[in-house]
């Protein structure tokens, strides 16, 4: 990444776009504190990003879940890392992404789409103010993708800030507020998301 300087507004929905290797996932990882920038700093709601981790929900390409645990067991473990949440909040997160919380199967036996949805539940169960989502629609069927898009819309309406990387921009034409275009690790363009933008 080179020369990136961005100020994003709370409560808005941003789509990160760019060709493969443009640096979209790297930028998300940097915001999440997983990669260190060689220069400069990243503030989340005015706080150094590593001090603001409790406000952050991150979903990556990989599911970031233990194969040997069930969906609810996975969420219970991660909930403890955030200071423990009642089961009700975890069940609600699973239901919001369209998963059955009673499903006792280990997630190693889940389909790719189910793992993807559980990964989203892991990112949202603690109701973070900032959501960083890397390709949340990959591996899910069109119906589920639409359901996820609706969920994200409701989260934006709740005042959450969302930064999302996707190649399926069409799904977000009416949801996203702005797009940010990256090219070769640099900021190439930024603007309002329009239906025409979503088609390009």
């Amino acid at each position, binding site marked *: 990444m080179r020369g990136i300087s961005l100020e994003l507004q709370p409560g808005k929905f941003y789509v990160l776009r760019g060709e493969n290797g443009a640096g979209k996932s790297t930028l998300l990882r940097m915001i999440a504190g997983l990669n260190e920038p060689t220069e400069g700093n990243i503030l989340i709601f005015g706080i150094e990003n590593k001090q603001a981790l409790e406000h952050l929900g991150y979903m990556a390409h*990989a599911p970031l879940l233990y194969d040997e645990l069930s969906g609810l067991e996975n969420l219970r473990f*991660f909930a403890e890392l955030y200071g423990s949440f009642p089961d009700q909040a975890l069940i609600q997160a699973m239901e919001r992404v369209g998963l059955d919380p009673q499903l006792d199967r280990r997630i190693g036996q889940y389909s790719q789409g189910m793992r993807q949805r559980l990964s989203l539940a892991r990112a949202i169960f603690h109701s973070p103010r900032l959501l960083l989502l890397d390709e949340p629609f990959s591996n899910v069927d069109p119906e589920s993708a639409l359901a996820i898009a609706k969920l994200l819309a409701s989260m934006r309406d709740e005042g959450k800030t969302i930064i999302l990387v996707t190649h399926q921009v069409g799904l977000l034409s009416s949801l996203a507020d702005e797009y940010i275009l990256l090219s070769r690790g640099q900021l190439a363009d930024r603007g309002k998301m329009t239906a025409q933008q979503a088609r390009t």
Partner: protein
Amino acid sequence: MSLSITRLTVVNVRKDLRLEWRSRDVFNSMLFFALLVVVVFSYAFDTGDSRPVMGGLIWIAFLFSTNMALNQSWARELRNGVLDAYRVSPAPAESLFLGKVLGNYLLVLLLECVMAPLFVVFYNLKSGGPLWQLAVVFLLGTWALVVNGTFFAAMSIRTKNRELMLPILLLPISLPAVYSMVEATSIVLNGDSSPWPYVKFLAGFCVIYTTACFLLFEIVLNAE
């Protein structure tokens, strides 16, 4: 909401033991390796009076078995990128480290308990000194191996040749501890002199390395 290191350490130990109970991949590979060492060496040595070499042999079996376990326990955290989920949470890195150390420690102690009768049977082993002294040596020796091993396994986990890297990093650092374990074990088994100078050295080694690894772990966890 407070995130105490102690509580999160317990959470991590519980999770690690649950994962191990369900997969058994760490314990099975440790057990298999230790069994191989016991059987192969029982043919290689005259087992008439094996006490002079037993200290070394016992710790060779546990040292290399532990090596295998440590790599696998971190590999589990890399599968599906779970370590990243930990890193983006507000949980302190130290609780992950202590949880891993304690989880691995319990597994290696369990292995030692399972293997002890086999050493007795295969090598016709009798202790000349009191068994409780042997227990102290094993508790400290195992901690020394596991605490260093867990730290260096975390350091080598993202490298290409991690199976090779761990022993290269771990063995030279652990050499003074291994020497003390072997000497103390041999002394107790032979029942000749006092193992306490070695036990004291081991205790000091454990305190120093546990502190250093605990303090440095966050840097290792976040190193790219």
